[in-house]
């Protein structure tokens, strides 16, 4: 049940005017999944029942989608009441497991499990009967035995044994082929149905009217073993295929399973466990150590370390305190905390990731296009080739054997040519690849992005927020002529007391630095901010100032030669300098800079090792840019790039004939991300970032770029191998089955071997795709 406060676009007003609403009454719209409706009058009935329920403003029921859209007054009726109204009308409301996007999956899984069990039953029936038919058909090979057995009786026995294989195990192929023919479309089932059907009908004729065959000078041979074995083998292929297919989508299921089932919510001052679907916006949820976070929100009380690996791929727990966001499905490790719910259902990060991965799995890779074109015309062309094979063999073979030879080769061509491997080659690899990416915090938007990532030869990194943390940090704290009876720690404590009052990013950097050093907490009074220069306050009775040089000069603080020298050194290193004074004396300098992430240099080295050129781009001046580039081992960089010029730098690289991957943090980089051949948004999770980029990295770490590019290469390699497998089976298989090698080698492909090869082709493609899951990224 999804509830929105605005009417959904699919809502259709019902006949009749809505009741006059009291002023300021807001209605809610919800969608109910109705079960049990079979006809238009049922849906009308449910619609009327809902419309007449007090509190319901409008109700629309769609028979096709089995959904009711109801607009109601939450003050008069709730969802349970609506459900009761539907149930009273004699229908059921189906509640999806977990809110919204993650729902209704269990039901589908159950259906699939049932279908799989049925398939397995059909397979074993076919195997058991084929295992009896096979030796019976071989009786003919022993003349001594043949004389004791009556041929017609043997044929009838085989016919009786084959019928269940055909009518029960193989029924689906014939039904499906027939349905297809009525639409004038042909699928793999058409080939199987025509192939086994031809073998069976020929055998049936030989069983029923053997004399006619003998009059033509032919042995009334039967091919029941071929028919039964082909069906058994193809069902074996389907069994293996179905098992492997389930594993290809395992990543998405694993993601969905991460969701917590209940949440401990504070309601009316009491803690109550409620199902996750009933959690509302702004609820306060309590999370204890070892528990999963139920949904997305912001911490209001307490602090803890959270394992966010399931969303970001980052294995280290992340420290969280009041005001920090938490995400559903992440694991609380150490402390207890309360958070206020900001997102539920479809809106949560987990739901968005699932949606994104599902969308990527539904997209088409450009490399698939050829396979698509081929498979569209494949089956009819194979049928034509099979007919031609029949004709040629009939004309060329010796008269006594021409009919059986023509028939056997006709069947072999149809059976070996089944194009399932071709259809499975790309999608299965993409499913496994995108799923694996999600596990590592790499969200791939579509298959095209995956294919582009494979071609990339140049990686353009935006400096701030990607190579560096994107926030200033104190790199140097230089104490100077400390006042008597004070030490470094107490000076830092006094300075920090002032900076805690300030909102400036540089002040925050000082506070973070001091907190990491564990300084004492002091009180500051008379705080004053000096616009563009710094701030001052009184701490422990002394006037404290922190700011730029101008601030100190304005307050007549004398700069010592030692301080000037230290400041010049920091400036040389392209750092921002903060001057600190206590009681009119300069006491310390802070060097502040945007620091390089620990992982950046190693990740860049890895990219270079893979043969990619790494280029840096920044708005900083030449000197700062050179410094950072040198630190991380980049030789080519663009400095002083204005935000609006970022896209043109991408163009410039493209003009050099490079395939460019642009890595940015997704806000001001959006045009450049879009211009690049492949955009990678980092530290994502925002909708904007996900929209602009082909790949979103959930983790703020350049290693994600390495993972994404490596994963794309592995996926593309798998796709190529798969397409090769599929084409080889079909392009080599068809001529061999048609008997092309016979004049030279005497080789003919038995239809049973063809069936085995056919079954193996899709299984080998799937197995190859599944190998990706074990690949290291």
């Amino acid at each position, binding site marked *: 049940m999804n509830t929105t406060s605005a009417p959904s676009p699919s809502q259709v007003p019902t006949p009749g005017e809505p009741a006059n609403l009291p002023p300021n009454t807001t209605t809610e719209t919800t969608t109910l999944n109705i079960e049990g409706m079979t006809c238009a009058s049922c849906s009308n009935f449910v619609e009327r029942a809902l419309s007449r329920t007090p509190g319901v403003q409008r109700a629309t029921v769609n028979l096709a989608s089995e959904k009711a859209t109801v607009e109601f007054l939450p003050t008069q009726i709730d969802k349970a009441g609506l459900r009761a109204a539907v149930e009273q009308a004699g229908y059921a409301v189906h509640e999806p497991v977990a809110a919204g996007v993650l729902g209704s999956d269990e039901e589908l899984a159950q*259906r699939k499990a049932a279908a799989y069990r049925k398939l397995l039953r059909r397979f074993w029936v076919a195997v058991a009967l084929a295992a009896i038919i096979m030796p019976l058909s071989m009786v003919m090979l022993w003349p001594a035995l043949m004389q004791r057995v009556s041929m017609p009786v043997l044929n009838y026995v085989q016919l009786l044994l084959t019928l269940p294989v055909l009518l029960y195990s193989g029924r689906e192929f014939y039904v499906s082929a027939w*349905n297809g023919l009525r639409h004038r*479309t042909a*699928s*793999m089932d058409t080939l199987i149905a025509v192939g086994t059907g031809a073998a069976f009908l020929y055998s049936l004729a030989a069983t029923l009217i053997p004399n006619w065959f003998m009059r033509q000078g032919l042995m009334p041979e039967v091919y029941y073993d071929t028919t039964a074995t082909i069906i058994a083998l193809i069902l074996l292929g389907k069994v293996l295929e179905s098992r492997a297919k389930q594993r290809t989508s395992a990543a998405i299921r694993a993601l969905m399973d991460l969701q917590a089932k209940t949440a401990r919510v504070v309601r009316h001052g009491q803690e109550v466990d409620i199902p996750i679907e009933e959690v509302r916006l702004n609820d306060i949820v309590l999370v204890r150590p070892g528990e999963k976070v139920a949904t997305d929100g912001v911490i209001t009380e307490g602090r803890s370390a959270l394992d966010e690996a399931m969303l970001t791929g980052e294995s280290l727990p992340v420290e969280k305190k009041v005001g920090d966001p938490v995400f559903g499905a992440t694991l609380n490790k150490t402390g207890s905390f309360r958070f206020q719910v900001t997102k539920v259902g479809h809106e949560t990060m987990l739901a968005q990731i699932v949606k994104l991965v599902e969308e990527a799995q*539904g997209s088409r890779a450009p490399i698939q296009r050829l396979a698509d074109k081929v498979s569209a015309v494949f089956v009819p062309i194979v049928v034509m080739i099979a007919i031609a094979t029949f004709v040629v063999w009939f004309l060329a073979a010796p008269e006594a054997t021409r009919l059986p030879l023509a028939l056997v080769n006709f069947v072999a061509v149809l059976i070996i040519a089944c194009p399932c491997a071709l259809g499975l080659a790309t999608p299965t690899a993409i499913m496994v690849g995108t799923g694996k990416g999600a596990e590592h915090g790499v969200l791939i938007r579509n298959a095209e992005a995956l294919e582009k990532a494979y071609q990339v030869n140049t990686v353009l990194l935006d400096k701030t927020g990607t190579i560096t943390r994107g926030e200033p940090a104190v790199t140097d704290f230089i104490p100077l002529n400390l006042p008597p009876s004070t030490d470094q720690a107490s000076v830092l404590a006094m300075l920090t007391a002032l900076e805690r009052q300030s909102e400036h990013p540089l002040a925050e950097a000082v506070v973070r630095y001091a907190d990491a050093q564990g300084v004492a907490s002091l009180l500051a009074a008379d705080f004053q901010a000096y616009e563009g220069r710094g701030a001052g306050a009184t701490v422990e009775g002394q006037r404290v100032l922190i700011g730029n040089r101008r601030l100190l000069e304005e307050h007549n603080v004398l700069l010592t030669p030692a301080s000037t020298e230290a400041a010049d050194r920091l400036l040389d290193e392209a750092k921002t300098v903060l001057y600190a004074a206590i009681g009119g004396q300069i006491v310390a300098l802070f060097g502040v800079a945007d620091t390089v992430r620990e992982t950046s240099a190693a990740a860049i080295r890895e990219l270079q090792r893979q043969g990619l050129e790494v280029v840096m781009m920044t708005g900083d001046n030449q000197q700062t840019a050179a410094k950072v580039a040198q630190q991380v081992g980049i030789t080519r960089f663009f400095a002083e790039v204005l935000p609006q010029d970022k896209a043109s730098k991408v163009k410039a690289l493209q003009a050099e004939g490079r395939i460019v991957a642009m890595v940015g943090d997704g806000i001001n980089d959006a045009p450049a991300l879009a211009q690049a051949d492949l955009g990678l948004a980092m530290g994502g999770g925002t909708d904007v970032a996900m929209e602009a980029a082909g790949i979103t990295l959930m983790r703020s770490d350049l290693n994600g770029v390495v993972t994404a590019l490596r994963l794309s290469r592995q996926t593309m390699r798998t796709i190529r191998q798969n397409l090769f497998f599929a084409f080889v089976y079909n392009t080599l298989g068809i001529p061999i089955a048609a008997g092309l090698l016979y004049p030279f080698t005497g080789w003919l492909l038995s239809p049973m071997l063809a069936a085995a090869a056919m079954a193996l082709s899709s299984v080998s493609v799937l197995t190859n795709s599944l190998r990706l899951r074990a690949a290291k990224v």
Partner: protein
Amino acid sequence: MDTTEIIVLLGGMASIGFVGWFFFMAPHQVATAVSSSSGVQQVDIMVKGGYSPNVIEVEKDKPVQLNFYRDEDNSCSEELLLPDFQIRRELAPFQTTAVELLPRQAGTFEFTCGMHMLRGQLVVK
């Protein structure tokens, strides 16, 4: 060449021609979406060995709801792909699956089964 051979040869050629004509010259079943009063364009599509109708005409920039009723349980039609809209959906047998999308561009977009054997087109005008 004896009579049987001539019959087989001519019959084979005729069959090849028939197969080509039957599958490649198949007529399209075109349907235009019906807009509901709220502006959603709805089309009911039957899935049974193919899609009927198999050419769906819709208008641009208006939400579309395609209701696929899968009237069979063989594996060929279990998946529906609309790659241009990044949609991959499992169609449950003997049930209707509603696929919603918003066409923002005019053009012809293909929808197929998981193996690209059954095909249909969404024509956005």
